[in-house]
């Protein structure tokens, strides 16, 4: 929890020496509380005060990095229970588990398939974050071979799953110090696992089933052993239990400032369910509430794609919906006599409409109105996509300089503004288009 300006003031020298650049220590303290200044600007602050301020400013849920380089996954550092309170910052990493009992050729093919998967939504490419490799064979050398093969095939982040420290040690040697997640330290093996994680500067998962107090205790021990980057597995595998437990963990971290449980959480939605569909439902729950690393047992585009779409939805900043810039867009090189359509600047609206126009093959002008990133109906209801706004955009973007006709097609959902728009744009032929973007190609065929 952040300290108030007055609490910070008490930790400062209170000499008003001005060397930090502020007139008084109190003014500096206020800037620190607002995170507009750095403590290092004060040359006289005591070591004890520095430590106290650092501890107080540490995030309630630690930011943990799994992997290295461009494909690393950062999770944790969340500050709210509900996305509408601010936003969720670090979307959970999605991993697919492969076992080292898979013949190496098949294993490598599976790694490649996961590595190469990519799907685009609203102009943003989405993908799976990495591979979790499980030492199901129990054999050290075999595990190391599979981990080395995965490392050679992909730069994505890895999770190493083994209970025997010997296997973990052998596999970690094959990861080029790329900070894979070590899964997992338990009450039985935590000393060896903590030592390995520290040696390889890798994050460490800690698993204690169904007992948050014991989990917190073990977390404290691992931390004392020198491992800071910790991920929790509370060992709950059912849909009800995981919702309850992950909510409790998030509340403990944020509301009770419970430091030894203030870490991201790893989940296994495929354990303890009867089908891939149920795994997907549980993974979806973990995306919204409140996992940091999700390890799936199945990889199929028909389940990964909806999960990636959900993750994108939930982790969109509610204050900043994904928007496109307002303006007159040219699709498929339109000519002055090509059709003119108008819609809002909500990215999803834009990409749905632009995608359908492109698909239709008909060169078309698309006027994008600044509706503050809202979809057609929402923007209309909020008064951000009305006749006046549309008419203003027609002027602002000099539509008449580029288009020889005066015909404009409005979305079918806002057919009610037809009359008002006729008044705002005298002499124009206002036409009501389809309600759904997917009906645009058929509509454009008949436009003349």
């Amino acid at each position: 929890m952040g300290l108030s300006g007055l609490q910070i003031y008490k930790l400062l020298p209170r000499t008003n020496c001005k060397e930090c650049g502020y007139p008084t220590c109190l003014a500096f303290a206020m800037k620190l509380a607002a995170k507009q200044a750095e403590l290092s600007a004060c040359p006289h602050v005591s070591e004890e005060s520095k430590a106290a301020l650092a501890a107080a400013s540490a995030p309630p849920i630690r930011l943990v990095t799994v992997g290295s380089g461009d494909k690393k996954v950062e999770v944790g550092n969340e500050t709210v229970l509900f996305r509408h309170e601010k936003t969720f910052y670090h979307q959970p990493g999605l991993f697919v588990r492969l076992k080292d009992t898979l013949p190496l050729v098949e294993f490598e093919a599976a790694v490649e398939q996961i590595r190469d998967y990519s799907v685009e939504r609203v102009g943003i490419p989405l993908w799976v974050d990495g591979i979790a490799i499980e030492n199901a064979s129990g054999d050290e050398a075999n595990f190391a071979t599979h981990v080395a093969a995965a490392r050679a095939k992909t730069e994505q982040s890895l999770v190493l799953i083994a209970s025997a420290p010997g296997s973990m040690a052998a596999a970690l040697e094959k990861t080029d110090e790329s900070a894979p997640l070590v899964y997992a330290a338990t009450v039985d093996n935590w000393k060896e696992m903590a030592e390995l994680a520290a040696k390889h500067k890798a994050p460490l998962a800690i698993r204690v089933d169904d007992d948050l107090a014991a989990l917190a205790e073990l977390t404290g021990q691992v931390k004392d052993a020198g491992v800071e980057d910790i991920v929790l597995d509370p060992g709950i595998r059912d849909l009800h239990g995981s919702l309850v437990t992950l909510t409790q963990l998030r509340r403990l971290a944020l509301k009770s400032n419970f430091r030894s449980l203030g870490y991201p959480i790893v989940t296994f939605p495929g354990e303890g369910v009867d089908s891939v569909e149920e795994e997907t439902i549980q993974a979806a729950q973990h995306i919204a509430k409140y996992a940091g690393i999700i390890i799936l047992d199945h990889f199929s585009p028909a389940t990964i794609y909806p999960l990636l779409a959900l993750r994108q939805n939930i982790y969109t900043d509610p204050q900043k919906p994904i928007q496109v810039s307002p303006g007159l867009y040219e699709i498929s090189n339109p000519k002055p006599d090509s059709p003119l359509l108008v819609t809002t600047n909500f990215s999803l609206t834009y990409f749905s409409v632009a995608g359908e126009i492109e698909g239709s093959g008909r060169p078309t002008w698309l006027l994008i109105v600044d509706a503050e990133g809202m979809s057609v109906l929402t923007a209309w209801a909020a008064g951000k996509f009305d006749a006046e706004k549309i008419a203003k955009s027609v002027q602002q973007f000099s539509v008449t300089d580029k288009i020889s006709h005066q015909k404009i097609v409005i979305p079918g959902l806002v057919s009610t503004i037809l009359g008002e728009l006729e008044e705002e744009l005298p002499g124009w032929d206002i036409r009501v288009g389809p309600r759904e973007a997917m009906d645009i190609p058929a509509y454009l065929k008949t436009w003349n």
Partner: protein
Amino acid sequence: MPVTVEIPKEKWTGKVREVTLGATADEGGTRQRKVTVGGEGTLPFLDFEGDIPNPPAVAFEVQDRYPEDWSALLKEVWGDVLHDPGAWAKKAAECGADIIALKLQSAHPEGDNTDAAHAAATVKAVLSATGLPLIVYGPGQAEKDNEVLVAVAEAAKGERLALGNCEDKNYRTIVAAALAHDHLVIAKTPIDVNLAKQLNILINDMRLDLDRILMDPTTGALGYGLEYVYSVMERLRLAALTGDSMTQQPMICTVGEEAWRTKESKVNEGVPAAWGNWANRSINWEVITASTLLESGADIIVLRHPESAKLVKKTIANLVAH
């Protein structure tokens, strides 16, 4: 040193109202089963700090005309019953429906434009084909909604139908019909906490009891605005639990309609290979939209595909069981 963990618990001061759909013979209706939703005194499925007396219910959408525009996947799975709303409702009941959500699509003025008498007859037929409670939607055009729903309310007097949709520009006639003939209403608003609250107030001002109002905050499908309705529902439920009386209505989400009109579900031509198998993808689309909204406070989920309904029912069972 042993660590103690004290779980932070919220002390909620309010709870969601219980609303019962359907009336049995001794209550003036003909339903064999009633369905009560709402009553939660805690956030969705967090039963460690409050009661959840009723699990969410699953409704199946049924239309009174062959749904020409539906995905081929849906037409295939339902088959011939799509031509007969009574048979369709019966099959939906066999597939595990708790409620039938009948949409009087044929009354649409730009479609078949069937009249009020036709609507009343259709509702009578569906009522005799199933013993489940009914939701009845007009075609979605204000004047025609009023015309057919008034006739339906009268013809099914005492059945405790849920009549929809009431919207801010068109609710008086439907509310009056519900008042006169012992039905409920569905109050639909466009993804906004204050508008939802305001419409509940306006309807309640006409003297319809609050235990006869369901609210529909407007559903956005996965990938098509889901996050908006997700957060609005979380905010509505938090408001209800902190004692804001006019937000304490159970919530209904028309998931099937929204999920099945996405491009992902509707078509399989010219879509990226990364979208995966069409049938699996479509069902996942409907189910994940449903499960995500259940976890943000939905009390009734209206679905289209029987396989989705099976999965959603199992999800509900898993979320309340422990």
